[in-house]
């Protein structure tokens, strides 16, 4: 009987570990947290050839979303200004958010900050690398390449 109870206890502990891991492990396929789901970029680390880039996502109505970029010279994140406007948006009824940003060559460490009406603040970071002439460029836009080499 004791053995049976011990085995049951062990099983329960093992299960609780598995369940807790499942609850708290980040879903590698989804960028986001309990407040905002980022639709683009689709992963925490991504590469693009587009200098003009859109970050999009969905959150709840009233949540203020602001976008920052890491500045390695000052070791700080600065709020982005795009075409003279601060990259700050308040989600409307649909909760959809889309923010245009201009990427710089190389890695762009982007911080997305949410501020909910109840005062909750969340922060998540994504890395977007801008490759101006990557292999994917050559494959996806041969026309530009032809123009570039004067063919």
């Amino acid at each position: 009987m004791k053995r049976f109870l011990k085995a049951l206890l062990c099983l329960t502990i093992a299960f609780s570990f598995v369940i807790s891991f499942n609850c708290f492990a980040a879903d590698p396929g989804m960028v986001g947290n309990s407040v905002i789901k980022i639709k683009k970029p689709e992963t925490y680390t991504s590469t693009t050839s587009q200098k003009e880039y859109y970050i999009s996502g969905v959150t709840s109505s009233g949540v203020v979303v602001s976008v920052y970029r890491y500045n390695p010279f000052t070791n700080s994140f600065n709020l982005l200004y795009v075409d003279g406007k601060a990259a700050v948006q308040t989600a409307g009824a649909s909760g959809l958010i889309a923010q245009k940003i201009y990427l710089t060559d190389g890695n762009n460490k982007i911080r997305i900050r949410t501020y909910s009406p109840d005062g909750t603040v969340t922060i998540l970071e994504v890395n977007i690398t801008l490759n101006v002439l990557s292999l994917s460029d050559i494959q996806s836009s041969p026309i530009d390449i032809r123009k570039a080499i004067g063919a």
Partner: protein
Amino acid sequence: MNKRTELLKSTLLALLVATSVVLFANSWSGRPGSGENENLITQFASAVGLGGFLNNEISLTSGTDVISPVSIIYTSGAKRIIFNKGTDMYNSVYGNILSVLLCAENVTHNEKVPSSEWYSAQKTQGIYLNYGVSFKRGVFEKGTGCPLPEEIKNVSAVILTSNDSATNKLVIYIYDYTEGEFYKLLTSVSARTVEKLLSDADGYTNIPIAEELGFSTDSEINRQIVIDGNAVINLEQQKLQNISFKSVSGGFSALDNRNVNFLLSLFDMSKSSAKQYADIDGTMYIDTYGTLRFSEKESVSVLEFNAAKETHGVSLENNSQGGEIFYDILYTGYSKARAVSEIFETDNLSFYIASNITTPDENGYTVQLDYVSEGVPVFATEEGTETHAVTMKFNLSGELIYYRQYLFELSPGNGYSNIPGVLDAINLVYSAIGTNEEPIHIKDISACYKLNEAKAEACLCVITGKNDKIYTIPSNNTE
């Protein structure tokens, strides 16, 4: 006795010759006509004094005008150029694209593909043709002259791409919105045909589609809202030129005799048999088989035809025996709308098809058209709700039993209006629909004009749901 017989024979011969001449003229005037044939008959008609009448009929429509995309989008990398129907730029590129589309004759292989492959093709490089509605395959084939594999039921959008690096051949993707299916057609034609068109174009800008922003999949935080992945999401604030509109006034009395006769003939009526009446709602012609009324609704003139019986309406002009009757219906309807516009001199507006041309319902066929001015759709309103420019109903035999067309003229006004951003518009629609109806499906979002209380308002149109309900969000300020 012999003389009487000869006279009888001569009279009969003369009658036969006259009949054959009339039938010859009729049969030629009813068909689309092109090139040399059209010139011949036009010259002949002019010679016998029927030039104006026949010109009206012949110059109306070609199949490729009827089955033409609402918008054409060139994609190179993530950059795009949009050509909307009703603009000079559209007209300049459409002919070349049509010749590429005809390459479907050289299909070597076809297969169903997942939506991900369609969107992948959308994002690389190619030409996207958005028809706005679904056309039954037979209708599409007859209108464009482009043959398609039998597996395809309907065509709603097409991508012509050179994205098959393995073969470097033209690949055609077909989207059947009604069935939710995607097809890939491999051809034996060089991909260079598409590449040349794309490289010749200038003015590419970064305009995303909903799929690229992830808006075509369900949200997990909020109530479900899904935007068709193909919808262009122009997040920049757009400016639209202000326009003024003038309703067509005077009705039948403003038309000369020739145009009244022509108008009546479009509805199988004639001035000799139809009686003209006037009542509080407008003026009308009543014939044995129907009523043609000219009236004014909410500051906009309307021409309306009602057949006396649903079983006996206006017959098709080019009924192709045993062919695709829905094409003949569409062609007839489209031609009539163009002819009516010419008669009332409102022909600076183009049309596009606004209802699916797939299968008839139990009562018959419905065809709806919308106006487009310089690439921007224009909607009249009825009791505050956006309505289609032309609505036609045909019975199951293909006879026209109901016709309604709004008639107005548009002219450029002063200044510009700032129309709302796409996300602002979606939020307003989301709030307007309320919380009971879910999920919300948005089919398309684009700039439009709405005629309201004798004004033409610049708006952002959001088309939702399967019944294509249109929400218009008016501009917030003008300059």
